[in-house]
């Protein structure tokens, strides 16, 4: 049963990226809006530490659809791998 639900949820996650993410609202989120209104957005910094896709944008492609979707698909795969790996380490490594 586990394999089926895991596969199904993985496919749904990919579909969310493929179908919904391109239509995501570009408006500022709650914190960004508050930061603009109260005037502390000027403190924002971005450190250039090997971010692959800053702000979820693939700068190397032209298609606006792929710009969003490629980083999203990559993120779904990386998050799955990272979390699974982290859990395996937690459950198996003795301290």
């Amino acid at each position: 049963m586990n394999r089926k639900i895991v596969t199904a949820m993985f496919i749904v996650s990919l579909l969310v990226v493929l179908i919904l993410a391109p239509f995501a609202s570009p408006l500022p989120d709650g914190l960004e809006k508050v930061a603009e209104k109260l005037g502390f957005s000027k403190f924002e910094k971005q450190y250039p530490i090997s971010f692959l896709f800053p702000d979820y944008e693939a700068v190397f492609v032209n298609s606006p659809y792929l710009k969003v979707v490629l980083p999203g698909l990559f993120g779904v795969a990386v998050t799955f791998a990272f979390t699974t790996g982290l859990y395996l380490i937690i459950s198996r490594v003795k301290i």
Partner: protein
Amino acid sequence: MHIPDGYLSAPVAIGTYLLSGAAGAFASKKVKEAVDEQKIPLYGVTAAFVFAAQMVNFPVVGGTSGHLLGGLLASLIAGPYGGFFIMASVLIVQALVFADGGITALGANIFNMAFIGSTLVYFVFRFLIKSTKNETISILLAAWLSVVVSAIACAAELWLSGRSSFLVFPAMAGIHAIIGVGEAVITLGIVQALKSFRPEIFSASTYRGGVSSE
């Protein structure tokens, strides 16, 4: 409400790193005690889903958008301590790969959205379902609270960092009270869809004291 680099003072950034580290150490002990290795891929895919869902901003009011945070969803599936690692993983990947949330603010973001938004809110959910015996209301209210309380914690960190006046509290709580409605409705929809498909993926103890799942 991913805090970027530059918003937090050094003491607040370090303090929240320490708090999240302590929460992580405690949660890893708890997970180690009880983890069912067969379920690890399920936790991985829950994190992947939360990541995907967080990309989908929906417009709310006044030129602002929100997106699912997924803290309650994660802890309903993986328990309060497992939920912590699902949310922390998502936040780590977002900060390191996508520059969404600062590196120096990662401790604060994990504290707000993993520890408060997933672990603590799980216990709020347990309390609600025991006292109301109504699963729908408990999910809606706990999911809403997870966003609002995380936002208040975020406001406290900004205020303690000297970046904003006290006004940051009502501003953050107010807009997230609206975004939280989206969180509540989406969380309920996903939980119901998953339950109709595979009710056993919700950890058995989650609904103990509740009415609907056992």
